[in-house]
């Protein structure tokens, strides 16, 4: 079971994601943005950072990079794909996930510990999270306010694609509509979230709740690999 972590110029959580994937039991390798194949990765993480500087709009340029062709094909094949923070922004810009991430309503960069409720436990990313358990994770972003027009958000909720929401006690840190912190695509195999599970993978650093998410993904990918 191998996880590939894409390195865009400006990615800055690439090594963190690599570290997190390894803690979750996977082999993990960095994938260069100029590459056109995934070196046999069973699951792919688009990490946090400021890909290509994010000077135009977060994630707006990264979607054109050579590796994204292989990432799209991987997702189309049903491969697991996780976007964290800037990676989530890239996935929405690439049209692989619904919605958009706007500037935080506080108009500031926000670094805070938040608590996520887990809305579904039957996705490849959440299957190992015990029912009723919330996740304590850090956020670190300036443009993380999730947006989707009301009607579309109704549909998204209806189809069970909203899988993480900001919850008490800290609440919604960035003004995301209906407290949405993370979503999946229709297949449930592409997931994006603003908080950082890879930074909460060891109790020493304040929380290991994020490991539940990463481990779910790694175990799901391993199962697919075993079946194949």
């Amino acid at each position, binding site marked *: 079971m191998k996880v590939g972590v894409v390195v865009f110029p400006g990615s800055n959580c690439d090594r963190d994601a690599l570290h997190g994937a390894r803690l979750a039991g996977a082999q993990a390798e960095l994938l260069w943005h100029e590459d056109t194949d995934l070196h046999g990765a069973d699951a792919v993480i688009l990490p946090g950072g400021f890909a290509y500087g994010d000077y135009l709009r977060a994630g707006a340029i990264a979607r054109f990079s050579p590796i994204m062709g292989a990432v799209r094909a991987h997702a189309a094949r049903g491969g697991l794909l996780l976007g964290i923070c800037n990676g989530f922004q890239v996935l929405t810009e690439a049209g692989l996930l619904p919605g958009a991430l706007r500037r935080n309503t*506080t108009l500031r960069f926000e670094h805070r510990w938040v608590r996520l409720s887990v809305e579904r436990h039957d996705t490849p990313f959440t299957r190992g999270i015990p029912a009723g358990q919330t996740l304590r994770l850090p956020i670190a972003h300036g443009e993380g306010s999730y947006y989707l027009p009301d009607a579309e958000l109704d549909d998204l909720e209806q189809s069970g694609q909203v899988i993480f929401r900001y919850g008490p006690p800290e609440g919604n840190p960035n003004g995301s509509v209906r407290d949405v912190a993370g979503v999946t695509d229709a297949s449930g195999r592409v997931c994006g979230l603003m908080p950082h599970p890879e930074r909460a993978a060891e109790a020493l650093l304040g929380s290991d709740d994020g490991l539940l998410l990463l481990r779910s993904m790694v175990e799901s990918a391993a199962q697919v690999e075993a079946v194949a």
Partner: protein
Amino acid sequence: MIAVEPEIESDADGVTVGSSPAAVELHRKLGLTDQELAAITDRLGRAPNDLELAMFSVMWSEHCSYKSSRGLLRTLPTTGDDVLAGPGENAGVVRIGDGLAVAFKLESHNHPSAVEPFQGAATGVGGILRDVVAMGARPMALLDPLKFGWPDDEATRRLVRGVVRGVGSYGNCVGVPTVGGELLFDPSYTNNPLVNVMCVGLVAENGLAHAIATTPGYAAVLFGSPTGRDGIGGASVLASANFGAGSAEMRPSVQIGDPFAGKLLIEASLELVERGILEGLQDLGAAGLTCAASEMADRGGTGIRIDLDAVPRREDAMAPFEVMISESQERMLAVVAPEDVAAVQEVCRRWGLPSAVVGLVTDDGDVTVVQDGEEIARVPARALASQAIEMNRLASPPHRHRAAPAPGEPALAHDGLPERGMDPGSVLEALMGHANLGSREWVTTQYDQTVGTDTIEGCDKTAAVLRVKGTRKALVMATDSQPAVAAYDPALGAALAVAECTRNIAITGARPLGITNCLNFGDPGNPEAFWQLSESVRGMGEACRALGVPITGGNVSLYNESPLGRIAPTAQIGALGLLEDLDLLIRPQFRNEGDLVVLLGEAGAGMAGSAYERIAGAAPDDRPPSLDLAREASLQKLLQQAASEKLLNSAQDVSGGGLAVAIAECAIWGGLGADLTLAVAMAPAVTLFGESPTRVVLTIAPEHWNGLARLAAGVRIACRRLGTVGGDRLRIRLVGVGATGAAEERGAGVADEVDVPLSELRKAWTMALPRVLGQEGHA
């Protein structure tokens, strides 16, 4: 850095100087004195041409040459068993075992931040990051001690917002967590904020890079952003003087940061260092290419020949002096064997960075500049760098200053104990809500503190703690300064800052390995300002020697003055410590109901320079508290010993706001109150709010009391039980002569006491910054 800007007398009339009598004056317009021009002529054996003069003017600035401070800095202790690189390198480096080492340094970006707070602060972060990268180290943490005027006017609040956003923007973008620092308000910093930034990086001991050019025939490769006119300090003066006037006159001299390019530069540099294909590496900061070329050649005893036409540029028609002294950001100079040039340029290309061979290492000891095949400057590298001029400055103390009594000297009546008869609970709430003491969350939520997955303790506690992956070790880091005390007694202020900073390391159980510093002072040509600087260096050196901690590097920032006057003397200290086993980490917050609260050390007289003095005033002839360095060293050893014997559940040092504030912080962080009794010897204010040093609040399990008391007695440190942790209130009863006396004077039937719900203290503490800066961080 604006290397020359503060030293140039502005040419207000905009007189264009081109004729020969006026050309003689060029050196003055560049900020060089007649004496300095004579020294340059002496070193060259001839008069310098204009380009050479421009190169000297930036290299002989205070920032690059330390011409006023070099003699003082030589007195500092800089060596130690763990020190791998000391002052003179891009950053100090200390060994931490397991084949690893840590590079760290503090630097200032004060003047640019006063002009343009966002870019000034951002490029300050970029600059210190590159200093650490130039040692081959991967930056793992930033700390930003900041000082501003009192935030009661919008101009100051604008500076605060801009600087905080600037620091955050650069650090957040390159993915280096900002894990600590300070935010201090004092009227002396009005219009002249201090933006000091410390960077800490990790490097394999055998992977250290050095800023050196030793092999003639090797190539100098410039990589990173193309060179532009930004950041040419005093460009307007240069232009009007001799290089053709025009729009360049109005060009801002503050550099513009590009954190994205900075991130690519870090990754490319570290990849090059890791591949072992560099002989030398240096970042381009103040004085740009001139500084990097001359310092690398000087260190290696070589020369370097710069081909100006090869320098990648982002603007047309740049004059030679502009290329040579441009401070465009995000650039590095590498010295490489000819056969490795292609490999170096390929790494740069992969990271999307322009690179070019701009020079050749020579054996003639000179920095030569060539354009169109013609030599247009030739200067001995050492004349620009290690043999730059030194200034003998006059130092004289002000007519009246209030030094602390010598340790052990009895507190005399005229020490002016503060007025009795206060309500200590209200004073405590006022202190907790004071802008200098309250929660820093307004600032620190704008900093990414957890990127890198090493942060155990970030900005919100006394010291930052980061683990070292692949080991059991943790690095502990803190910054401190004591400008309010230094305003009375600069040597004491600097020594107190060293003592507090290392104590902040020691309370975690760690051992301080080294100190870095940033000396922020006024015009060294003013004898009183120079006295403040020399006294501060003396105090800092004495403290470091007594505590056995070397100073591994730092930076000097002079001319910190505004029309309102000179800043308070500010020796900013940064300390790095090592915890060998992170299972032994002690944190400051109260942990368990029923734990004993213990005070190590004793309160001394002297409220001058304290936060209490700021809100309540103090007697006019009161003095700052004294510092006994031998006792401080004993206390710090005791803390490490007690931590290693697992006696401690928490430890917090007593500093700003005094004992009551230290206890309140432990309570707020731990979410647990306490019920305590304090013996008052002199006056309640001294006991509760005095800031005399060498004191620590501990909590321990009751069964460890005997063990701790025995350890403390062994090193003659006072050790007292104050009470127990628990409940949701902070109650501090006052007993003893001083306490009852105060109550009687007020006609109260019972002695004063503190008895405040924790929730009220937390509220005051949380609202301290939003109250003065506004709820939101945006401009």
